[in-house]
Every structure is written in C-alpha cells, then in structure tokens.
C-alpha cells in the first residue's frame, strides 16, 4: 500500500511538472488557458491524494479551491476576457520556444539537484514532492519573464503559485495551508481580474505589457 501511495503522489506531481513545461511552449492564449486549467486540475488531484495519504481532511478544502477556482472559474473568466478584448491571436514570446524549453529542462534538473541532497533526512515522499514543487515554481518564474502579454504573465504566476500549494500540501502536517491558498486566491481574483486588466484595457486598448513600457516616467 505504501508503495502505491508513493507512486500515485509521484505520478501526480510529476505530471504537474510536465504540464508546466507544456505551458512554456503554448503560443496561443486559448490553448494556454486550457493547459492551465489542466494544471489546476492535476494540482487538485495531487493535493487530494496528499489529503488522503496524510489523513488530513483540511487539505480537501485546498484541493476543492484549486479545482473550482483555478480549474474552472479563472480559466473561463480569462477566456471571456481574451475573447472580449480580441487578443486571441498569437502571443509573442521574448525568447524563442526552443531555448525556453532547454532552459526549462535545465531548471527542472537544477531543482532536483538542489532539493534532493538537502532534504535527505525527510521521507522519500516529501523529498520528491518538494523537488517537483520547486521545478513548478521555477518554470512559472521562467514563464513570467519570457512572456510579454499580461494574461500569460498571470498564467505564469498562477502556475508558480500551484507549485507553492503543492509544496505546502506535501509538507506533512503544515498548518495554515488552507488559509494560504485562500489568501492566494484572493490575491489573484481581486487584483488581477477585477482591476488590472480592465484598467489596462480602458487606458491602452491592449494588454501587451510591452506597450506599457513607453510610459516610464524616466524618459526626458
């Protein structure tokens, strides 16, 4: 039984890393949002599995939040927004897809090499979980720096945050996980969707962050 528990947890968090890599090369906003929904659903499964094997019922709440909020509500809302803004065409990446993917693979290798030796004293489950979580976090960061579009930056941030929730769920018995996941959801919902995109739209007729750069106060 223990072997199975470990294998399933391993599979789920491993898929999360895989989906993070897939996010990196999506060059259309719709498909990016769809893949992100997958990311959130797998996170929900991974957290629910942790709740089951750790016998920690409060983690089911976190899983439910991930599934409902990030798996359904946010992708649907962003879908609509993209449609309304008429920006569903190709999104530009700052760096090419090939180098980004290679860099992403490098980051995964790096996080495994950093985390595994450091967490030697922890049990195998936590150890692998943390290594995967760090990979997801770093891939999310990578996505945020390689994209210019505000929507894809948010998707990058949300995938990064999924990695954090994975790490928090994997740390056995950690308190406040539910509160933290709620705090994150509030952060995303309130700031990103509610205010920024609409304001940016209102002012610039675009959500390409690159255009914002022109408005730097420093230009003479």
């Amino acid at each position, binding site marked *: 039984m223990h072997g199975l528990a470990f294998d399933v947890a391993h599979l789920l968090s491993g898929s999360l890393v895989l989906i993070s890599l897939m996010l990196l090369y999506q060059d259309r906003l719709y498909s990016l949002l769809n893949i992100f929904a997958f990311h959130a659903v797998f996170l929900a499964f991974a957290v629910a599995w942790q709740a089951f094997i750790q016998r920690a019922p409060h983690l089911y709440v976190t899983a439910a939040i991930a599934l409902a909020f990030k798996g359904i509500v946010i992708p649907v809302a962003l879908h609509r927004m993209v449609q309304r803004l008429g920006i569903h065409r190709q999104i530009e990446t700052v760096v090419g897809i090939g180098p980004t993917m290679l860099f992403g693979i490098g980051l995964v290798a790096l996080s495994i090499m950093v985390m595994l030796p450091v*967490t030697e004293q922890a049990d195998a489950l936590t150890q692998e979980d943390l290594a995967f979580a760090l990979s997801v*976090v770093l891939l999310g960061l990578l996505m945020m720096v390689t994209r210019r579009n505000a929507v894809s930056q948010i998707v990058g941030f949300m995938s990064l945050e999924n990695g*954090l929730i994975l790490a928090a769920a994997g*740390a056995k018995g*950690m*308190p*406040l996980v539910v509160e933290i996941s709620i705090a994150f959801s509030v952060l995303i919902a309130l700031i990103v969707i509610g205010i*920024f995109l609409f304001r940016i739209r209102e002012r610039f007729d675009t959500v390409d962050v690159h255009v914002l750069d022109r408005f730097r106060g420093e230009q003479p």
Partner: protein
Amino acid sequence: MMPSGESAMAAVLIIPAVATLLLAVISSYQAGSTINVVATALTLCASSLLVVVRPAPSLYLHVDDFNIFLVVLNTFVAFTTSVFSASYIAHELSSRRLTPGYLRFYHAMYQVLMLAMNVALLANNIGLMWVAIELATLTTVLMVGIYRTPAALEAAWKYFILGSVGIALALFGTILIYLAARPTMGQGMESMAWTLLVSHAAAFDPALLNLAFVFLLLGYGTKVGLAPLHAWLPDAHAEGPTPISAVLSGLLLNVALYVLLRFKILLTANAAALAPGALMIGMGLVSLIFAALMLYRRRDIKRMFAYSSIEHMGIITFAFGMGGPLASFAGLFHMTMHSLTKSAIFFAVGHVSQAKGTQKIAEIRGLTESHPVLGWGLVLGVIAIAGMPPFGIFMSEFLIISSTFAREPLLAIPLVLGLLIGIGALVLRMQGLAFGPASQPNTPVEASYVPLFAHLALVFAAGVFLPDALVSWFRTVATMIG
C-alpha cells in the same frame, strides 16, 4: 486601572480594522481624513501602552523588545503621515487628480495597510507573518495605481508582478523552515511559532535552514528593495500618492527587513547553518553603491528619494550583516532615523510637487525663495538624509563605518565610497531645487508643517542626545539580533 497587555495588543489590531469598515462606508472625504487621523492616533496610544504592559506570547502573536520598538515607530509615523495626508489629499481633490470615491477607497486602504503592518510586526507565527506581508503588498499595489494614469498603472503592474514573485519565494522559504522544524518539534502550529522555533533551532537540519534562508532573503529582500530585486521600488514611489510613498519608504521597507531579521536570528541560533551575515553584507553593499550611482541621473524628485531609500536599506542590511553589538545597534538606530527622515522628506516633496505642479527636478528651482518654510524644511531633510551632523543619521552612519573599520577594514572602503557618492548626488540636486531664482508656477500651499518639522526635530534630537533608556533598549535588541 492599568489595561492588560492582551487588550492593548488587541486594540493595536482592532482599531485599524474597525476604522477600515467605518471609512469604507463614509462618503465625506473630510470626515474620512479626520477618522483616519483619529484612528491612527488611537493606535499609537494603544501601541505605547504595549511598552509598559506586555502580553504573554501566544502561538500567533507576541511582543518582545525587538518588535515593540518597531510597532511604536510604525504607529507614530502612520499617525504623522495621516496628518500630512489630510492636508495633501484636499489639494488632490481640488486639482481633480482624485475623485471622492477614490479617496474613500484610499482611506480604507490606508487602514488596511496599517493593520497588515501591525500584524506582520506582532506575528509570532511565520505563516501569519507571510499572510500579513502579502496583505500589505496587495493594498499598496492598489494604492500605487490609484491615479490611473498610464505611468501609475505601469508602476502598479510592475510592483504587483515583482512583489508577488517575492512573496511567492518567501512562502517557499517559510515552508522549508517548517520542514526543518518538523523532525524536532513535531507537526502542527508549534513548528511555525517563532519563539519556539528559536529555542529549538540548534537541532534543525542546517542544510534545509540554509536553503530556506536563501529563499527568504530573495523573497522578503524584494520587499526590502535590495538590488537586484529593487526594480519595483522607484516606480511605485514616484507614481503613487505621496503619503503612500512616505509610508512605503518609512514603514513597509522596515517591516520587510524586520521579518528578514527574525529569520536571521533563527539561522544564527543554529551553529552549523551558514552565517547569514555574508549574504546580507553582499546584497547591502551592492544596493548601496548601485543606488548611490543611480541618484545622479534621476529627473523625477520622488524617484530620486526612492533610490535614496534603496541606498539606506542597503546600509541597514549591511550593518545587520556585519552583526555584533555595535553594528546591530547602529543598524537599529539607522532604521529608526531613516524612517523618520525619509517620511519627513516625502511630506516636503508632496507639498513641493503640489506647489510647482510637477515632479520634474529640472522644473523645480529656488524653493527657499518662493516657499521659505517648505524649502528650508526640504533642505534640512536632505542634509539629514545625506548623513551630515548634527542629525541622527550622521551618528548611525558614523557607528556603522567605525565598527566596520575596526573589524573588516577592507569592507569599509566600498561602504564609505558608496556613502560619499550618495552625498554628492543629493547635495548637487538640493542646490538646484532649493536655491537660485524661483521657477514658475508658484501656487501657495496650504500645508500642515507640523509632521515635517516634528520628524526633523526628533532626528535632530537623536543626533545630539540619545536618552540612556533608549540606548540600553537598542543595546538589548542588538544583542538579541546578534
């Protein structure tokens, strides 16, 4: 009858919370700014009570020598800033930069920010600390974007993205600290309570602690504004309302640094873990020199003082990185002095930019001629922040430099160099701003100068004479930080 420590601590948190709800429903902006001032004054009274009566630490909140001094400083500057804000926003309303609806939002957010910072300072739980910093980031992002100009939106967006990445990394570090604590302290809330963590830290796995500290340093370091993670800071200071720039520089940077220092204490308690000092010295020096050089090419007055904040946070981080009773003492002293001086400068700058209708340095000239009180106030503030005697910052910088010379003479060279470069830039700019023929337009300002000169008087007094009680207090905290 003396109120108990618990009720005083509750008051420090409940007053801003109640004021937020109240301000959210009151539509008159005059009433709003009055309530804002009253609420911050009450919070200041409650926090001063905490000095006398101290509640027992719980798993969530605690008061010790270190945070009590910052709570009092925080609530004091929050109070003076709210007085400044009351005279500032009336002008913003009449010049139609803000609508009454936005002002209501602004006042409510001001109190949320106070609540978040007080929670972050009083938190004993490292998870709660994180949530409070996140809340503070969230509210300041909204405040920075409040003018809704393209530049303000860009600043808010940048702050949001960098700030979120910072707090995300900090959360990862927090999780790693919990994992390091779990084998010795077991599962549950105890393994996140700072007071308990410190007493058990010697038994933690050093490798995990090291890794956690790197994440925490990068994460909370972003909020402190340390180079190379400072990019959000100048924009956020320049584009938001000036009272928020004052609170950001004077308080929020301190709060983030305080959180970082808590983790530094944790790491120092474990003999096998890496010494956090070297990392902090490195980041501090880079921030200092980088910001000092950047001061020369600034064209926007608020942006210039934002870079000066980066410079001073660098100096403070450097001092705490050096460690030891003297350097930590100087670091604490500098933290206090910088907080008071920089907010005073922003009070002056706020009125200046209203009087001149611009923030461009080139278009502001001869302030001492056109607005003598304001102009000389700014001059005094700049003299103080540049670290000239007899102001307090001179004392703290002198202590930092002399302790560095005594222990690591080689490190003192870049330190002194950075300081001199910074002084040069500030003096150069100040001459243009303050002296010579006055530039147009010259709108008279209806300003309350009390906050500005109250801060400057305190900084002056601390530079001339520091009461023994305060000295011994700083000394106790410096030993605690190590």
